[in-house]
Structure formats: structure tokens, C-alpha cells
């Protein structure tokens, strides 16, 4: 089979993997080598679905022995199959990299023969890149659940980031849809990678040249909307993963109907739900929120019409408005419409002067949502009267979501869903 044909089949099979980040590694180029890591990550292109393309995302092979119902590569599915050789992938990566198409390689694979054999093939590929081509660019590899500890340790020393997919948000769903994968098979390598990273960091503190184990940290992904878990369960799980497994990222992937199992939905991917989960995920990682604050037993789903941060603020109006000149940084971060950058700008600038609303505008702080929740120098913005039943419709009308006519807050079926998606950008 021609290499172009293989590339088509195996990138098509890999496209449902979400992770395409290249951040977190600052690997330097070596003499005579090629490539380097960029700490902040670099997006090299964006595909027609608006997702960033930063790595050459391919499977080593899609001949799978497993039969996971949600996956296109399940062995019972009638689809084109192909396998690369380690040399082919290494050559392709280098040629693409030299033309600046990509930031590095994302290498995953279906399980061929058994997990150990598959991992060995991945290692062989990456060894050619690292030792023969002296490639110092970004490499993200999948740890195959069930692979032996030695192989995972070996792989970890070669790559920048590793990930083990948690696949579905609960053990029950996993049992129903992917009976060959067990919770232990997924969590054990995750734990091992976490321990490896911790050890490596300690060694690096003592010996500057100690080998780096997965320097850009590990990530994972789960499928949203294929099974019945609530947003609360998912966000709780993510919080656990961030805390206990020291995850760098948890990715959510709205389920695109590829399976035929009667347990699986056949509707369009729940993109808005996925987007709300990402928003909540950011709140967990950068804004100091906890999962318990965002959703409660009574209300286990995020709203379709407002974002999680607004939702939280409206439920806690007793804390607002806050004075932009006095409130602590943590509280400014919790104002809807003010992000990490703007909060830092405010905290830095207010050391020298009393900020007014005009100052905030000059600093390019968006007032669209923030104006309902802050005061400056004892005044509210344009004398807005703070009352929940007024704020919500006002927020919505400015977002252009509700449009003309009567706004119904209790209607979950928002017709403007597509418009929200366009507004929000990154998925």
C-alpha cells in the first residue's frame, strides 16, 4: 500500500483523539539535531472543524483486537485497515517537521496482537526519531492499557507527554461498552506515569542532567454523551484526576455516532455540552473553583444558556458586587467576564492608582458581563441595579442569544445553540 493511502486511513482513524497540544516542554535542540519544544505550544494550522492541528496525529495501526463499542476501530467494524512501519512514520515526521507543517508527533495505536507488542512498536518508532534523526521536537505517545511496566517506563523517557485514555466517565459504562478494558488496566499505568514524573522531578533537582520522564506531564480523555453520566459526575471525576493523578489536561470529546450498539445514541454530537465542560474545566484549573461549588445534587447539569461562571455568580449574588480596587485577586477572578490576564492587569495597576470604569475600558477589560458584578470607587457601572431576575435577561440579550421577543428562562431548547458555538470559538 502506498504511504499516502496509509496516511489517509490512519489519520482518519486517529481524528477522534482530542489531544493536540504541544505545550509544557522546553526541550532544547542539540548540536547537529533538529527541532525544539516551545513552552507555550504552537498551533500550526486549524482544520475545518476549528480544532488546532499542532501534531502529526496518526495511529501506528488500526488492526485492533478489541471490540469497544464507541470506537471506529473496533474489530467488528467493517473499515479500511492499514499499518505503518516504524521507519515510515519517522521519515514522514521529519519531512513534515522540516517544512514546518507540524510541531511534532502524536502517536497512538490500536492494539495489535497484545499491548506489549504494540508498545514495543511505538518505542521502536520513537527511538528512530530521537536517536537516529536526533529529533528534539514534541512527541506525545499513548500508553496502551495493559502494557508492562518496563515498557511504559522506557516509553516515558523518550516522549514529552503521555496519555492513557479513561474513555468513559464511569466503570459501569466501561463494563457495558468496552468489556475488554478494565478500570485497573487504565488507572495503573496512569498511576505509574504520575509516580515516574514525581521521581524524575526529584532527581532533576539533584542532578541537572538526570533523564526527564514525561516532562510535559500526562493527559487523558473521555467521551461525553455516549453514556448517561451527569455533568456533575464528569466534573467530579476530572477534579479527582487533576488532584490525585496530577493531570496536565483532561480532554472531553463529544460522542460522534460511529457505533451500532443499541446502547449508544445516534444523535448529533453534544457540542454545547462539551463546551460547557471545558469552561468548567478551566474554572477548576485556573480560577480556584471546586467541582462542588459549580454543580450540586439538585442541579447536576450546566445551563444551556449561560456559562458556568455566570451561573455560579448568579447563585451567589450575596457576594457581589465587589470593589475592583479592594477585592482580593481570588475574588476578582470569580467575576464573570474577567479572566486570568485581566485580573492580573487589574491587580498590578491598582497598586498605583484608583481604577475607574474608564481605566478598565482602556485596559481592554470586557464590561459586557463584568459590569453587573463590580463597583469602582463606590459606584456601579451606569447605576445598574443588581437583581438576579434582571441580570439574566440583560446578559442574554447582550450575548445575542435570545434575540428578539420574549425570553423564556425555563426553556432549555435554545434555538440559538449554533450561534453560541460560533461565539465561543475553540471547542
Amino acid at each position: 500500500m502506498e504511504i499516502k493511502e496509509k496516511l489517509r486511513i490512519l489519520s482518519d482513524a486517529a481524528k477522534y483523539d482530542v489531544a493536540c497540544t504541544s505545550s509544557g516542554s522546553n526541550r532544547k535542540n542539540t548540536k547537529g539535531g533538529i527541532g525544539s519544544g516551545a513552552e507555550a505550544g504552537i498551533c500550526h494550522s486549524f482544520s475545518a472543524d476549528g480544532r488546532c492541528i499542532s501534531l502529526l496525529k496518526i495511529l501506528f495501526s488500526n488492526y485492533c483486537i478489541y471490540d469497544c463499542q464507541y470506537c471506529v476501530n473496533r474489530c467488528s467494524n467493517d473499515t479500511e485497515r492499514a499499518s505503518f512501519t516504524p521507519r515510515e512514520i519517522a521519515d514522514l515526521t521529519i519531512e513534515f517537521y522540516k517544512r514546518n507543517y507540524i510541531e511534532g508527533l502524536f502517536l497512538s495505536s490500536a492494539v495489535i496482537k497484545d499491548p506489549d507488542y504494540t508498545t514495543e512498536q511505538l518505542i521502536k518508532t520513537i527511538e528512530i526519531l530521537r536517536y537516529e534523526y536526533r529529533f528534539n521536537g514534541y512527541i506525545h505517545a499513548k500508553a496502551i492499557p495493559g502494557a508492562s511496566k518496563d515498557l511504559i517506563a522506557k516509553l516515558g523517557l523518550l516522549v514529552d507527554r503521555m496519555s492513557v485514555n479513561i474513555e468513559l466517565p464511569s466503570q459501569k459504562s466501561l463494563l457495558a461498552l468496552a468489556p475488554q478494558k478494565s478500570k485497573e488496566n487504565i488507572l495503573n499505568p496512569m498511576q505509574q506515569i504520575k509516580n515516574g514524573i514525581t521521581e524524575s522531578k526529584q532527581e532533576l533537582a539533584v542532578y541537572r542532567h538526570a533523564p526527564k520522564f514525561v516532562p510535559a506531564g500526562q493527559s487523558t480523555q473521555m467521551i461525553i454523551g455516549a453514556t448517561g453520566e451527569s455533568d456533575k459526575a464528569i466534573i467530579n471525576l476530572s477534579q479527582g484526576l487533576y488532584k490525585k493523578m496530577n493531570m496536565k489536561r483532561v480532554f472531553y470529546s463529544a460522542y460522534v455516532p460511529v457505533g451500532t450498539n443499541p446502547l449508544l445514541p445516534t444523535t448529533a454530537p453534544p457540542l454545547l455540552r462539551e463546551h460547557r465542560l471545558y469552561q468548567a474545566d478551566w474554572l477548576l484549573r485556573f480560577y480556584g473553583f471546586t467541582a462542588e461549588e459549580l454543580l450540586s445534587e439538585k442541579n447536576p447539569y450546566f445551563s444551556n444558556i449561560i456559562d458556568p461562571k455566570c451561573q455560579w455568580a448568579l447563585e451567589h449574588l450575596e457576594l457581589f458586587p465587589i470593589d475592583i480596587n479592594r477585592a482580593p485577586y481570588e475574588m476578582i477572578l470569580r467575576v464573570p467576564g474577567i479572566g486570568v490576564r485581566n485580573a492580573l492587569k487589574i491587580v498590578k495597576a491598582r497598586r498605583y492608582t484608583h481604577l475607574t470604569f474608564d481605566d478598565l475600558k482602556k485596559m481592554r477589560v470586557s464590561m459586557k458581563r463584568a459590569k453587573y458584578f463590580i463597583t469602582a470607587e463606590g459606584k456601579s457601572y451606569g447605576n445598574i441595579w443588581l437583581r438576579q431576575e434582571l441580570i439574566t435577561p440583560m446578559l442574554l440579550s447582550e450575548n445575542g442569544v435570545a434575540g428578539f421577543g420574549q425570553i423564556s428562562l425555563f426553556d432549555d431548547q435554545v434555538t440559538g445553540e449554533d450561534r453560541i458555538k460560533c461565539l465561543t470559538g475553540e471547542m
Partner: protein
Amino acid sequence: MLNRRDVIYTYDGSFEGLMSAIFDCYYSHDYPYDICNEGNMQTVLLCDYIGTSADREKAGRVMNSIFAKISSEAFYHIYCAYLSETKGREMKIFDFLHTGYKFGASVTNRMNLDSVWRLINTAKTVASEAHLYRGFIRFKKLENGIYYSEIEPKGRVLPLISHHFCERFSSMPFMIHDLNHAECLVYNGNSVEIRETDSVPLLKYAEDEQAFQEMWREFYNTITIKERRNEKCRMSLLPKRYWRCMTEFN
């Protein structure tokens, strides 16, 4: 104290020239009405013109004073703003420096001051364009083994991206041709320089070049999940003005 006067300083368009002009302003205690590039100047009634020439020593003294009295971060902003090629950037730089000498290193935190946010926002447009070009540049392999790429940026991003590419491709000769500003970054495997160009050279691509371009287009098209198509999102993250020079859209 600087005296506000209806006087316009002119300089030769180089960064060194601009720094020398600023030196002359301070030396003669002038807060000028404007600082203009000699090349594209319009005469204003009732204004005196003072010509300045680029002087390495004067420019060096101004730059050293920025590092010593303000901060290296401020210098970076000033340099980026200079590269932005926007109208009125010279006076933005002058205003910023004037504020900077007054407040010292803290000036970059005082985003509420007009002179500060105007300069930093101008600088950011160039810095972020340069960041995007780190990803969006596409090299094509020529017959003689040199990797060649064309770009059409708004600001002059070449000095800002040169280090990134020279480190990454340290043993690979490459050229980045800025068509809008007729400049070309040339790296030969050892040293790097930015040359002025007047025309697009006749290019002969390597034999296997076409095959890799096709593979990349194939990859680019297959990686899209059809069910999630979102043109608007792509357009905001990858604006159309970049498309002309990118392999996947040709």
C-alpha cells in the same frame, strides 16, 4: 523638562535612526509635535522640521537608558511597536518613554495610562502576529536543498521569529521571504541575516516536494471531523489573510 513645540523631527526609518532622533529631542529639550520617517512624510503648515541622522553612539545611549532606567520588558515593547509599521508609532514610543523615565520599571504595569496602553497594544499586535507565524510558515524544499517560504505579514515580524527558527532548524539552510516589506531572512546553517530584496526569485522545487505537499493536504483534509464542521471558528483562529501562503490551501 521638555518644552512642547510645533516641531517635527525626521529620521531615516531605521530603529537606530529613531533612537537617535529621540536622543536629539531630549538633548534640545523638545517635546516634538511628531517624529516622521523621511521617506513618507507630509508637510504640515506652521511646523519646523529638524532632520536627524542615525548615530550609533546616540542610539546606544538611549537604549542603555531604557535598560537602566526602565526595564528590558519595556524595551521589548518599544522594539515590537517600532516593527508594527503603523502610523504614529514613533510618537507612541516617545510618549511611552517620557512616562517610563518618570515611573521607572513599574510603567509596564500602569495599563490605565494612555501612553502605556497605546504602546503596549500596538506592540502586542506585532508580537502576536509573530507568534502565529511561528506556526503558519510553510517551507518548500528547493532543488539545491534550501527550504524557502513566503509570508505576507502586516508588521515586520522577521526579527522576532528569527531566533525561534534558527534554534529549531540549526543545521538546515532556510529562507523566509517577507513579500510585504521586501525583506528576506537568510540562514545558511551558521549565521543569519535579513536582506532587502526587490523581486521574487525564480524557484525550482525539489523532486519529492510535490509528494509531501499532497500528503500534507491529504492529512489536513482527513483530520477534520465532518460532523463538527465550524467554519466561523476556523476563520477566527486562522484568518484568511494567512491562507495564501499556506500549503494546505493551495
